[in-house]
């Protein structure tokens, strides 16, 4: 596998055999390990996460009767506010808001805003890992969420892509069969 200087996502385009479709590994660098170490050292997370506020939104089709009957999409709006930032970690407070959008069907509520009851933190770090024949550098975010109205909590980790304008994107694979979750795309304010 040839692996060198593959950016912003995209990975195994380099390893493409004929007829193989590009698949991204969502890393910011993949290649020789000495170079990867240099990339990590030069890209501390405080340089990547340079804004004190980010806003982002994603679109979802959940598996519930109302969504199915009314073909409703749900938009989740997230605001991240800086809590602390060092060269090794950038931590943000999260507030989330949910609305339904999209349907104009008779008998269906088109637009509805739900009270914000999910809060938490998002902690960003720059990571280095060894692969079979190379090394990669990527940005990781650890989410810790909780409900303000119930005992619900959730913790999960995703990789983050940094686009060329400093905005952030993270994939969140969703279920098939007409259900989906778009990537979360954040802009720095």
């Amino acid at each position, binding site marked *: 596998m040839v692996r*060198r*200087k*593959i*950016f*912003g*996502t*995209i990975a195994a*385009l*380099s390893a*493409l055999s*004929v*007829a*193989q*479709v*590009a*698949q*991204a*590994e*969502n890393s*910011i*660098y993949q290649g020789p390990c000495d170079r990867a170490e*240099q*990339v990590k050292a*030069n*890209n*501390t997370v405080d*340089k*990547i996460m340079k804004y004190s506020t980010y*806003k*982002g*939104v*994603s*679109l979802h*089709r959940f598996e519930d009767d109302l969504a199915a009957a009314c073909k409703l*999409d749900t*938009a989740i*709006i997230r605001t991240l506010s800086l809590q602390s930032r060092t060269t090794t970690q950038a931590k943000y407070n999260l507030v989330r808001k949910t*609305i339904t*959008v*999209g349907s104009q069907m008779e008998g269906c509520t*088109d*637009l509805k805003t739900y009270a914000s009851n999910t809060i938490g933190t998002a902690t960003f770090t720059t990571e280095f890992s060894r692969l079979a024949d190379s090394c990669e550098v990527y940005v990781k975010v650890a989410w810790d969420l909780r409900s303000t109205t119930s005992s619900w909590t959730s913790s999960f980790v995703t990789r983050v*892509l*940094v*686009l*060329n*304008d*400093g*905005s952030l*994107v993270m*994939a969140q694979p*969703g279920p098939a069969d*007409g259900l*989906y979750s*778009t*990537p*979360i*795309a954040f*802009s*720095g304010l």
Partner: protein
Amino acid sequence: MRNKHVIGGMAALAALCASQAAQANNAIYQGECSRAYQVKTNSPINTLMKHSKYKAVSMHRFGEESEKRCDADKIFHWELTLTSSTTSMVSYSVKRKEFYFSKNVPTCDRLYSLNNSVIGTVNFTTGVSEANGLCEVYIWSDWQLTDTANANWKGAFANRSVVMNDGSFVQAQPGPSGGLFNTPLAFSGVN
């Protein structure tokens, strides 16, 4: 988003000088030119844009008076439907609907849909360009939009798209500073 020809930027993860923060070129490959052309040949656009329908939502602050008064962000709901697909170009029809989402200010505490509907087309291709002695392969999207409620308004912009590892794709929409912004467009295939 209402500006014309916002061109995908070029930053330089490629360059990666010491002390330089990671900035993606939003390219899908960057390296030796012979390899770049091989990558392009092996990645026809119809294998990258493999869904017949994509959906996305994006958030914006344009600086309009109503936004300031209500501290309101605008939300665009996007839907792409496949119209043609070849190895060199994939085309979709575009439908875009706009929503205001206002903060909890008494007279602005509502969510509503605008009457207009933006429609148009977007064409996706793959391209190769040379930069700093290397070649890069990228996905290019060219958007042509009109407004069904305003015959005089036409939107046109072109940008690089980045395909993620789950088949979704995103593109940055550089926005103005000073509290105004356009979040990236992040599309998922929905069938």
